């Protein structure tokens, strides 16, 4: 065994030369793939780079258009200042943060309870519950807007935080329940049975024994839910018509002027409206992608 590896580790000089020639030829042919790929990737990220860059240009530069010679000369936070002066964007961000954080918390708690039930109990209607959760995923969300609007107007939930939080929890809940029950399935039953023997209640078992073990799963569910809520536009647009209640995405959409758009301001607002999702995504990229991919492959 060791002689074989030694022989392979020290090839004869002629073979070494041959391999070097071989690998340089391969490196040249690699460029046939790498160069076009680099061009495509640059084209893919260009709109985002241009958005941030446009947000950082002073107003006269934006109006004057692109001047390649002075591309990086004037960088300023002027557009952000104009944004906060001219609109209530800071209020919209606070609204979005509030709605999304409360919504995420509710989704995770409600989904954990239901996920635990699906994972640990066999009860009548368990199969039907699974089916219901999967079916809601297929139902077009836009179809719900009319009936839910009338329903909410009756209950006084239009133009209110609780109303939109309820919509957002419902929107993210089905997938969250399915994911949580999957995570709970990964925890051996013997652990919670042992805790029960010691007299712990079901809620204590979930919070003290199971939750710490599936912590990475809970983080994934929270981040996916938060991102989905942060991005949502349609329901926020229809249900929150008071300016003081608007979310960041609705505020951003409202900046498209009827009489000429101040693109510097729109790009500043876009950068802010994209920041939380980009940051969260970068932190959990690998896990989120793995989750999405696994879901699609298993499904």
């Amino acid at each position: 065994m060791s002689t074989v590896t030694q022989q392979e580790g020290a090839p004869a000089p002629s073979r070494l030369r041959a391999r070097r020639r071989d690998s340089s030829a391969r490196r040249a042919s690699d460029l046939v793939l790498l160069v076009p790929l680099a061009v495509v990737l640059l084209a893919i990220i260009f709109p985002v780079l241009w958005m941030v860059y446009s947000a950082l240009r002073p107003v006269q530069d934006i109006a004057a258009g692109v001047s390649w010679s002075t591309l990086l000369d004037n960088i300023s936070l002027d557009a952000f200042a104009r944004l906060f002066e001219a609109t209530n964007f800071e209020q919209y961000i606070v609204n979005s943060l509030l709605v999304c954080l409360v919504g995420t918390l509710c989704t995770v708690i409600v989904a954990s309870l239901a996920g635990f039930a699906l994972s640990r109990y066999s009860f009548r209607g368990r199969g039907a519950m699974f089916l219901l959760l999967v079916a809601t995923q297929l139902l077009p969300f836009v179809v719900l807007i009319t009936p839910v609007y009338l329903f909410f107007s009756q209950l006084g939930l239009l133009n209110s935080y609780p109303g939109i939080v309820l919509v957002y929890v419902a929107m993210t809940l089905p997938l969250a329940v399915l994911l949580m029950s999957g995570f709970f399935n990964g925890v051996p039953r013997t652990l919670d049975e042992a805790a029960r023997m010691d007299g712990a209640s079901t809620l204590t078992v979930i919070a003290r024994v199971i939750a710490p073990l599936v912590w990475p799963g809970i983080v994934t569910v929270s981040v996916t839910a938060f991102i989905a809520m942060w991005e949502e536009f349609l329901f926020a647009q229809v249900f929150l018509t008071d300016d003081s209640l608007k979310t960041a995405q609705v505020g951003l959409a409202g900046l498209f002027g009827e009489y000429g758009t101040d693109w510097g301001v729109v790009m500043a607002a876009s950068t802010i409206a994209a920041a939380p999702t980009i940051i969260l995504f970068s932190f959990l990229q690998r896990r989120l992608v793995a989750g999405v991919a696994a879901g699609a492959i298993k499904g």
Partner: protein
Amino acid sequence: MTTRRTSLQAYLLSAPALVIVALLFLFPSIYNVILSLQEISPFQGPGDGEWTGLGNFEYVFGNPEFWSIARNTVFWLTALTVLLRIVFGLALAVALHSPVLRRWKVRGLARTLVLIPWMVPQVVAIASWRWLLDGSSGVLNQVLVGSGLTDSGVAFLAQTSTVWWSIVAIIVWRELPFVVMVLLAGLQSIPDEQYEAASLDGAGGIRAFRSITLPNLRPVLTVVVLVTVIQTFNNFVYVWLTTGGGPGTYTAVLATELYSMAFFANKLGAGAAIGLVMTMIMAVFAVLYMRATRTEDQ
């Protein structure tokens, strides 16, 4: 005795989730059917609707523009963008899967870059593209005019010859990463031995792609097509925030029609009817599609 108590516990734990799902999915979908048979405006209470039988459906189908709106939704918004996403997504996934990237130590970087459009909210993606495509000072027009390709700026989102291609570009750009990531995961699950065996048999790259890669990816492709079709068909934001359905009603789709009908024309019943039609189209599509892909497998 214990079993009855434990299943009671299971019901109690599931209750909040079930109540929310029933309140916001189950009940509204049933109520949508009722609404589609009524004449009702957003200023009326839920009980104030007037029964009109199939009046709303007659009204919706009687609109001379209905069929062009339906065609826009099926062809431009959905079929074309899904096809382009699959073609580009497959090409990108195969490129990102190549051992070349690992050899040059750029695999992680390339995969992160390809994800970036996905990290951007849809509304932000639309805003950025509207700025890129802006008729006077947008960067694309600066390049076109600067290089002498056109004499003056092209108003991409305001003229019928370019408006749909612009919307298609925005959708494909924003939604491509999902397809790439899922296909990439599919590629990674194909065992290397199959390719080794094929190359021993003398199969070239294209032959291996057709007889190993594609058949192995079929189940994943099936799911990707199903999910992207349903999501795109029902999407409201892309058209609404780029053109508002314009110029005129040239780019109107069913989802924007539902919204304008319900909240601009104040005909909630007609909006509900469009919603029901959309649900039916997607249900029929899903059933036919799953049947077609299943018989192919046999």
